[in-house]
């Protein structure tokens, strides 16, 4: 009674190296029961590595791991962590796409076996989905690969919170809202507070500082593999949090450029497949046009339609110029996982790197090296495999691929997923500079802040353009209203 209860999980002096890269150095972290710890830091600061250590998927090279006061450093691993009720929602989605939602729940719960396990698995996951995301509309028998990326993420989150004979005492959420729209994200964060109030613990990683400040009890700031600040959330503001992360704090909401007149022939003109009225999406030279709305309401389909249209394969879509694509679903449409960083970066520009019908390795290397510095890809050598990079840095490579190519029109499919604030600011600046040079951008984003960088915004709902807003008309309220209300 005199001694306070030991924290649920305590890491002491944890260090982890990957070859020459020191991912973690002497990190201390304690997660008490009944609290939410927020974790922030730049891409490559070591957040994901730390979470992997916590989840048991990585063994630390040095340091101590204790759960409820018991030292488990010797036997720490996936099994030990799972046995202690530690769950993790990884940044890269980790469901089996060929299995149904219920079958994926079974993978996590060995107790779901014997007669009627399907029904029990379906009930278990449906109950948790209902609790976290009311009116989610996900069928437990649906095959995961057929679901949208947002729904897959919802299933994975619900699975992490589900309880069978294995308890859920600490749930680690690594960028859980990156694929969710504002409504779903709010539902999740509200559920996190309820879970914590009932005595559970949550470790939350997010690049959206607002989420961290509103949800976490304590905030841990990481930089270069170490913890640089660990204080109650109340002591942080957006501003000093950004300062603690070590990035220059400039929170400008887009530059205050005058509204440009939309004149001349558009470079892209297209209508969504199911558009009932005569609204069309148009993009003019040098513009940044945003596609807004809730996640999965036809924005990605629209981008793909335009991309296909550039090949002249789609009726009712005209595209003047070459198109490039920046994927948001990195694993599915983005990286070549077995290739090096350099090869991933230059693949869209191979024609320009040719000499006598062959690729010139020297030119390839120069281009990769050039972009590594320009966009700040954190790697000692562009010959390293792409998967050696953190998620945000992989995304930078995809940006470099599109910006480095000769495409005039660049389509971006929610490209800032899992990218830290500092990088975002750099990329915003780069987009603006490229637009001024005559490139045009179509940008699907789920974040309001990013829409402020656009010259013109189309709000999508149920596969159709529901509203068209110029820069002057743009407001969060209007976007939300058009996202939800048919009458808007």
């Amino acid at each position: 009674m005199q001694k306070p209860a030991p924290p649920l999980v305590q890491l002491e002096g944890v260090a982890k190296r990957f070859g020459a890269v020191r991912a973690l150095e002497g990190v201390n972290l304690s997660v008490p029961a009944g609290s939410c710890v927020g974790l922030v830091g730049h891409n490559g600061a070591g957040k994901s590595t730390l979470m992997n250590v916590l989840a048991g998927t990585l063994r630390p090279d040095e340091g101590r791991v204790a759960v409820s006061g018991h030292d488990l450093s010797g036997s720490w691993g996936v099994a030990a962590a799972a046995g202690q009720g530690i769950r993790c929602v990884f940044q890269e989605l980790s469901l089996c796409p060929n299995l149904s939602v219920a079958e994926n729940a079974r993978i996590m719960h060995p107790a779901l076996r014997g007669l009627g396990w399907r029904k029990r698995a379906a009930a278990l996951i449906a109950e948790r989905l209902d609790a976290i995301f009311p009116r989610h509309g996900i069928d437990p028998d649906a095959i995961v690969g057929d679901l949208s990326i947002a729904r897959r993420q919802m299933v994975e989150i619900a699975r992490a919170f589900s309880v069978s004979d294995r308890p859920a005492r600490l749930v680690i959420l690594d960028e859980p809202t990156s694929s969710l729209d504002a409504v779903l994200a709010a539902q999740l964060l509200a559920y996190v507070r309820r879970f914590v109030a009932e005595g559970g613990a949550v470790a939350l990683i997010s690049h959206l500082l607002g989420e961290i400040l509103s949800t976490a009890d304590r905030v841990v700031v990481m930089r270069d593999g170490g913890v640089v600040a660990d204080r109650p959330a109340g002591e942080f503001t957006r501003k000093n949090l950004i300062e603690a992360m070590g990035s220059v704090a400039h929170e400008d909401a887009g530059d205050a450029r005058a509204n440009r007149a939309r004149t001349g022939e558009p470079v892209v003109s297209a209508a969504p497949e199911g558009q009932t009225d005569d609204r069309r999406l148009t993009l003019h030279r040098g513009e940044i046009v945003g596609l807004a709305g809730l996640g999965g309401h036809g924005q990605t389909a629209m981008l793909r339609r335009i991309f296909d249209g550039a090949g002249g394969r789609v009726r009712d879509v005209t595209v003047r110029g070459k198109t490039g694509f920046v994927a948001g679903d990195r694993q599915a449409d983005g990286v070549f996982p077995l290739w090096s960083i350099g090869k991933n970066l230059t693949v869209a520009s191979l024609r320009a790197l040719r000499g006598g019908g062959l690729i010139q390795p020297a030119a390839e290397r120069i281009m990769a090296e050039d972009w590594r510095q320009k966009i700040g890809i954190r790697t000692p050598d562009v010959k390293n495999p792409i998967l050696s990079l953190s998620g945000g840095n992989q995304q930078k490579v995809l940006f470099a691929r599109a910006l480095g190519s000769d495409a005039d029109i660049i389509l971006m499919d929610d490209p800032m997923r899992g990218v830290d604030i500092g990088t975002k600011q750099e990329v915003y600046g780069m987009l603006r500079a490229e637009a001024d040079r005559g490139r045009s951008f179509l940008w699907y984003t789920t974040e309001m802040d990013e829409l402020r960088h656009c010259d013109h915004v189309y709000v999508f709902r149920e596969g159709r353009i529901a509203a068209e807003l110029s820069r002057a008309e743009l407001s969060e309220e209007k976007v939300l209203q058009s996202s939800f209300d048919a009458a808007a």
Partner: protein
Amino acid sequence: MQSFLARHIRIALPALCLAVLLAAVFVMQPRAMSYVGLNLLLNLALPIAFATVAQMFVIAVGELDLGIGAYVGFVACVGATWLNTDPAVGVLMLAGGVLVYAAVGALIFWRGLPSIVVTLGMSFVWLGLAILVLPTPGGKAPDWLQAAMKVKTPLLPMTIFASVALALVVHWGLMRSSYGAVLRGAGGNPRSIERAGWSLIKIHVVMFGLAGLFGLLAGLSLVGLTTSGDANIALRYTLLSIAGVILGGGEFTGGRVSPVGAVIGAMTLTLAASFLSFLRLDPDWQIGAQGVILILVLALRVLINRTEARAA
């Protein structure tokens, strides 16, 4: 609604193909529409179905078995010799074969070897062993095995009942049981299975072991039908079994397989051969024509998948 329809057409496609082929055979040769006719048409389907299911287990974990044909031949040779003359030794040899299959699965996973190379190598081992066991075609299958393959079932030939039973048993084991979900998950996202605390090496051992077991059943049913063995008897099973899995709705990667589809695929391939004979097609062209049928079915599937994707 459209996607619902497309999804069900996709699942039903293998069965539809079989029905169309069967109808075409019946139209051209109405006498095939009898007990004896069906038996003649389909009696070689059962060994192919077993081999296809064996291949399916391997494909389910994202690997490929290029040795299954030679292995089936080896089993047939043992079945026509040792199993008849010295059953104890024969059973031990066959059990050893299944264990070797499981060990190969472990080796492929443990060392990260390409399964195509390892199983191709193993195919020479099996062929060599088969020739050692039975240097020239001949031998004699045990009487009980011949009798088992000649069982006369009411209404429809035994092959059909056995194929249905095979499809249902494997469907239950792989698609409905709780460990089956884990086995298939290993083909879909191995990392996720590992993070949930399952042993991937054990899964590979189980799947390759099952492939060995069903390959064994293929060899025994084959030798029961032909009554004598030959080391080269089943070499074409390797490609037939792969084609059967794909025809039945399976995919090479991602753990997407269907046991019912695989059995139907095997029967479709068997029927396609008979169908082409009925067409009086020159045997030289038959293999090519079989390939064309395969390509047509797969093209149809791609078309359906695309409709489905568009509707989603």
